[in-house]
């Protein structure tokens, strides 16, 4: 039981429990906080993989941007606990069973597809430091330059959309 394995188990336990608590907590604020903890645990996993840059970006983007946005919207609509009403019992049961079924099926498939044991080849030189990532991300003829540019289009569309949906109909022609 190497120390790495122990860290893995601790981190995954934290992740799973916080994820579960986000769903089950009554108060949306509590679930938001649980979610933040979950994100941190996932960042921990990245660190375990020695992907430092990725972990940091993950924390900035998710806990920094997305959670703030969610919390902001929560505050905007000042939701609180008591108006939280549950779905009728039947659908909740249905949801539980269906999800358990999917999870069971996927796990059994992966269990049965005996993965290649044996040791994992190590390339030696680091492949995930910022320098290498930068090169892979932005290299024109053997990297992901075009998707990178394309993401800009995606974000542009998201911005226009968000503005379009929330801008008041001003009378100025």
């Amino acid at each position, binding site marked *: 039981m190497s120390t790495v394995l122990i860290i893995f188990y601790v981190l995954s336990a934290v992740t799973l429990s916080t994820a579960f608590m986000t769903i089950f907590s009554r108060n949306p604020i509590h679930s938001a906080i649980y979610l933040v903890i979950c994100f941190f645990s996932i960042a921990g996993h990245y660190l375990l993989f020695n992907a430092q840059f990725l972990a940091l970006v993950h924390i900035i983007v998710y806990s920094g941007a997305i959670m703030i946005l969610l919390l902001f919207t929560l505050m905007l609509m000042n939701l609180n606990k008591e108006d939280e009403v549950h779905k009728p019992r039947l*659908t909740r049961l*249905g*949801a539980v069973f*269906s*999800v358990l*079924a*999917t999870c069971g*099926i996927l796990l059994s*498939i992966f269990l049965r597809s005996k993965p290649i044991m044996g040791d994992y080849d190590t390339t030696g030189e680091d492949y995930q430091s910022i320098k290498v990532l930068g090169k892979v991300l932005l290299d024109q003829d053997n990297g992901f330059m075009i998707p990178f540019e394309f993401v800009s289009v995606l974000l542009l569309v998201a911005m226009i959309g968000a503005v379009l949906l929330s801008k008041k109909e001003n009378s100025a022609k």
Partner: protein
Amino acid sequence: MDTTLALVLILAPLFGFLLNIFFGKQLGKTLSGAIGTFTVIVSFAVTLYFFLNITETNQAIQVKLFDWIAISDFKVDFGFLLDHLSLLWLMFVTGIGALIHLYSISYMHDDENMHKFFAYLNLFVFFMISLVIGSNLLIMFIGWEGVGLCSYLLIGFWYKNQDFNDAAKKAFIMNRIGDLGLLVGIFIVGFVFKTIDFAELKTIVLAGTMNNEMWITIAAIALFIGAAGKSAQIPLYTWLPDAMAGPTPVSALIHAATMVTAGIFMITRLYFLFDLAPLVQDAIAIIGAITSLVAATIALVQTDIKKVLAYSTVSQLGLMFLALGMGAYEIAVFHVITHAFFKACLFLGSGSVIHALHNEQDMRKMGGLRKAMPITFITMLLSSLAISGIFPLAGFWSKDEILMTAFHGNPVLWVIGSLASIFTAFYMFRLMFLTFFNDFRGTEEQKKHLHESPALITFPLIVLAILATVGGLISLPGNSWLNHYLAPFFPNKEHIAHALGQTEYILMAIATVGALVGIGVAYAKYMKQNQVPGADATFTGISKVLYNKYYVDEIYDAIFVKPINALSNFFRDFVEVGLSAFVFGFGKVANELSFQGKKLQTGSIGFYLFIFVIGFCAIISYLFIEL
């Protein structure tokens, strides 16, 4: 030369028909009547020419115009065959036809569409001629159905009265049933012998190479059904009495002299087929005998003058079929000719009586016309004597020949035939006494107008009466001109001359005595005791059954007409509705499914995602879980 003449022969009446139909109104009554009669006289003249020609040359003339229908097995061409039989038939068809045309000029004078009447009469003569001189079975079939059409038009001539129309429709449909039989007969003949041309057919059958026993019998049965339909024999005779709804000249021409003889003409024309089917011949004989007896019994109690004559025609036709059944074709033809003479005369006579009494047909309202209408009385008396078979007159010779052959063939039939003849004598003289003797039972107003019919009516009566008396000479038992004339037509039959042996004389005596007995009883009943049949309701027992024609019409109605109508109603209301509902059913099922389906689309996002996940599970598990 012969083709043009033959064309003139057949097209003259057609030309008369077209002229009358299109320009009848402008031509005026007498002129259209004259044209009508003239065209028939032209045909008669041409027939006479051909008749005289054939008596010398003994050479049948075959004319081919063009080929008509293309059938794989046999060739059907449009042509005419003028041989002994057809010319003989033409003689009395056009002859009596001309007389009746003459008669109807004055008879129909006060009818406003008289031109139409003559048009249809001419059309009838045209189709009758084509029936008689057709060179193959199909041309005969044209004539066959054509005369059926004309009888429909003429029976329903006064079309305002619906039951006349019903009678016409009934006649046409009954004929059509017969025509189906004839059609099937034609198919069999064409199929077996690969030709339907009479001349070729005769040579092939007599050569006996292609004869197939079973098929010939079925053909004979089918052809007989056709003949029975047209000549009103037992199963299909009820239309003839109803056909009296038409004007009297129509009844005289069509339902006494010409059309009803078509059946006998056809059987005689195809005698070689029937000779090969002895079973069918016996059946014909039996049916003929029964028909004559049944019709005679019904005629005993009828009160309508034309109905009596109609049933007498059916009875006489029965006798002719009896003769055909016995294989004595010449005798049947002889009786056809004599019957044509005296029956036409009787019908025309009754017509002139009806004309005089302003369309009164019920004998109970007549009587004592002897003095008022002497010529009609004498001519009808002569014809009645002829039909009863009294010695010098035509009826005696032809009927006795039939009874003689019946006696030699099958004595039972002879008994039935004689009985029918006795009844004939009785009802004919019952008719005579009721109409012409004792005192007048009509209304005063009719009494005042009682007068003898004009010359145009009496002249044909006189001619026919003379023919009825003299007619018997053409085939005396000893030397029969008729048999001699027809001999070339029956090549394979040796010419049997009736030996006037001892039995023949006895038979003649018995027949004459029977006739006298019939007349005597009638004399006693209607002359001496001056009995008059009561109103319809007063009939009881057997006479009620007879008066209602053994309820045959009602039986037919119950067996055929009612079930078909019921079936039609059933089809229309249930099967049609059911079938379309079934087809619509598919549409409804789809609609219903769609209606239920709409409930599935609940609109809640949770449900959609739930189905999404279920679908996802199903696909993944199907693909990757090997149980």
